């Protein structure tokens, strides 16, 4: 038998990089975004818009690509004050979903981080290593979702195919 997983190279989504102090960012974002997660490496979601707290004074928001322009219009990256930074980064990452009973085993080949559900809870999200690359890892329905820098996507796909061959 070989691994019982399905692997999907996901379509693009809207991504915005948010940097700055919690108050400054929340204040500027107002109701354009759900409330910012405060616990390190955790995420929140409200009607399709997700927020990842993945670094000190650093968040990423993710939404369906269709909402990209609308969100940008609300966040007004070019107008935001000097002490915060908002940058559209939708194209910078490619997401992969690994779902199925053996998703955990496949991830244990790819990723050195402890993804056991007692440690990496359902709302967890974090940058770590996947196949030696910086990657954003989180849970998804029946498995794990992760993203790598877009230019590496072909290589990661090659790796996953080999790992589950």
């Amino acid at each position: 038998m070989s691994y019982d997983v399905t692997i999907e190279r996901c379509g693009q989504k809207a991504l915005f990089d948010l940097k700055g102090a919690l108050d400054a960012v929340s204040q500027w974002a107002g109701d354009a975004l759900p409330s910012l997660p405060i616990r390190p490496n955790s995420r929140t979601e409200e009607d399709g818009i997700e927020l990842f707290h993945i670094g000190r004074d650093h968040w990423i928001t993710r939404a369906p690509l269709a909402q990209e322009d609308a969100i940008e219009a609300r966040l007004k990256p070019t107008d935001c004050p000097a002490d915060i930074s908002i940058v559209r980064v939708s194209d910078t990452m490619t997401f992969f979903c690994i779902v199925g009973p053996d998703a955990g085993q496949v991830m244990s080949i790819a990723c050195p981080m402890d993804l056991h559900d007692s440690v990496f809870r359902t709302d967890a999200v974090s940058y770590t290593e996947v196949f030696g690359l910086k990657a954003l890892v989180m849970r998804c329905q029946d498995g794990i979702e992760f993203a790598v820098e877009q230019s590496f996507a072909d290589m990661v796909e090659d790796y996953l195919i080999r790992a589950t061959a």
Partner: protein
Amino acid sequence: MMNITCPFCGKRNESEFIHGGPVGAVRPDPNAVSDEEWVEYLTVTPNPLGPVQEKWWHARGCGEWFSIWRDTRTHDIVEAPDGTT
């Protein structure tokens, strides 16, 4: 491969980090020091047989730069950013 405590992410594999060298002297005012002092600042770093304070970058993680105290004889992290060991 060490298990290094990142102040934001907690314990992670050393392979997620990039070593940034020991914490050396504070950068002197280059217009106020002698040549000798400048050369020493540039080239002489702490090299203790024992605990050394050094910088690490969580490059494949949250991007935080931080410092730890690590014993160069054992690689034990004698003081992590969050005070743990």
